């Protein structure tokens, strides 16, 4: 698993796509933090999480009122529903996103007029590695909903700037940090990183130590540093 090649990565960002072994090491980052980091081989590192938990709601969990209308208006758009610690999440297909967004904003019992946040999560082992997450809020009904869209490398997702102008910068940030392409975005540029930056830093296979330049100049040195025992080891 650790050496699983990242498809499509090479084409998009040449720098972090360079030394494959280093990348493979970096991939299971989150799970590997405490223990297996120092040595790549001896112990098999725990598998990187393959995807979010997306716990389904309990059967007796009362569903929000607008779910009914939503399913009726856009049959098939509700791929999956998840409920966890009080938050409802709907997983929708990328193709239907714009319709869903327009519907949710316009519908009377939903009226999600406020786009709190747009972000993404990267699950490298999964085929559709990105989860693009939309945190919505209704200033009239005062309830929240999360939309989630699964997206593969190189695929693009319709921009929701036409529905919520707030999405403009938030989508730019997701593009900057994850390389998720938003089609129809009016101004898709990098926002936090410099314009000429290579790679997308929030991806899980983007190295944490040192900037991309360091990696490019001496990949072996980078590997050596990476394999040193971690001082901040906990437990």
């Amino acid at each position, binding site marked *: 698993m650790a050496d699983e090649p990242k498809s499509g990565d090479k084409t998009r960002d040449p720098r972090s796509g360079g030394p494959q072994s280093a990348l493979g090491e970096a991939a299971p980052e*989150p799970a590997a933090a405490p223990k297996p980091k120092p040595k790549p081989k001896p112990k098999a590192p725990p598998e990187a*999480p393959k995807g979010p*938990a997306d716990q389904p709601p309990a059967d007796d969990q009362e569903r929000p009122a607008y779910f009914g209308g939503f399913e009726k208006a856009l049959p098939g758009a509700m791929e999956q529903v998840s409920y966890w610690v*009080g938050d409802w999440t709907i997983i929708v297909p990328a193709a239907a996103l714009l319709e869903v967004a327009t519907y949710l904003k316009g519908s009377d019992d939903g009226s999600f007029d406020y786009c709190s946040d747009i*972000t993404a999560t990267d699950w490298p082992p999964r085929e559709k590695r990105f989860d693009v997450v939309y*945190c919505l809020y209704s*200033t009239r009904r005062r309830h*929240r909903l999360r939309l989630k869209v699964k997206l593969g490398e190189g695929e693009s997702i319709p921009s929701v700037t036409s529905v919520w102008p707030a999405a403009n910068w938030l989508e730019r940030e997701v593009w900057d940090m994850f390389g998720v392409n938003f089609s129809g975005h009016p101004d898709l540029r990098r926002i936090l990183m410099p314009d000429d930056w290579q790679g997308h830093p929030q991806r899980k296979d983007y190295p944490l130590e040192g900037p991309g330049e360091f990696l490019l100049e001496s990949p072996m040195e980078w590997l050596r540093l990476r394999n040193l025992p971690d001082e901040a080891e906990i437990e």
Partner: protein
Amino acid sequence: MATEASPIFDTDELVINMGPQHPSTHGVLRIVLKLDGERVIDADVVIGYIHRGIEKLSENRDWTQIILLTDRMDYVAAATNNLGYCETVEKLMEIEVPRRARYIRTVLAELQRIASHCLWLGTHAMDIGAMTVFLYAFRERELILDLFEDYCGARLTYNSMRIGGLPLDIPTGWDNKVRAFCDLMESKIPEYEELLTNNRIWLERTRGVGVISGEDAVGLGLCGPPLRGSGVYRDVRKDEPYAAYDEFEFDVPLGTNGDTYDRYLIRLEEFKQSIRIIRQGLDGMPEGPVMGKVPRLIKPKAGETYHAIESPKGELGYFIVSDGRATNPYRFRVRPPSFCNLQGLRPLIVGHLVADVVTLIGTIDVVLGEVDR
């Protein structure tokens, strides 16, 4: 200046670069302005100059270590950042926080709101040229920093909360100091108002400047005082109560015109409401522990959540994904209120004069540390 010039003269637009080293861009904000005379035709807001990758760093830190990083985002309101993060993790782990801790958190958060608004008031007035208010506001902010120093030993980056409660109970006599501060602060607010509220020049500089309708503000994702200034009733403290806000009485001031003056009045009123909340918090402070039952190793179950609080700047949200196995979050995302408010800057400044640009940067109250993270 915007009249039709005769064709003899060259009438190019002037592209001017405001920032990142400009005295009133509040840090390292850069705005590329396209000017016709002094009128702004178009603007490009460029950010990212202090991007430190706090989100990425946090994904590789212990759950507790992250509190320290949240301090560095909105560094003028570190306690609210701590609060938002701790509450999000508590929500994810379903930890019950003791009532006393929630009360103290509320008091700290409101003190922080006053401190942040003091800084805002000072710099905003300074941008418009009223330099005295700046020092008056800082004088009071200094007292709040002293209170925080008494509480947790730090003056700027407090690291003042822990997952499940607070690291420390309040020191003896601290509540009386806070009460004394509240009384003092109440007597100082008229001082600011005297210098600004009815000042003709202040009125001319702020009224009708940067008007945004409630609908547009919601669409643009503005939050906090800029949103309330447009008359939208939206305060996370009321809508989705956290800490102990559901136990306190306070009003949410709303504006009517959605201009800079309304936003100014709202923040001044928030001073008073914050004092009211602090007093209620101190008077009703329950006895008990300040730390809830938290497992020794913090390791939330796999799952994700988004939790928002009302920071002085607006809705501060944390979206955290845990994979259930590691002692660090799988995904740590901050919804910075300044970032979303700053997005509203471009529509606000287009059509205004250069002098208004600095007014409008001031009125949306951005902290670049939070914008860039």
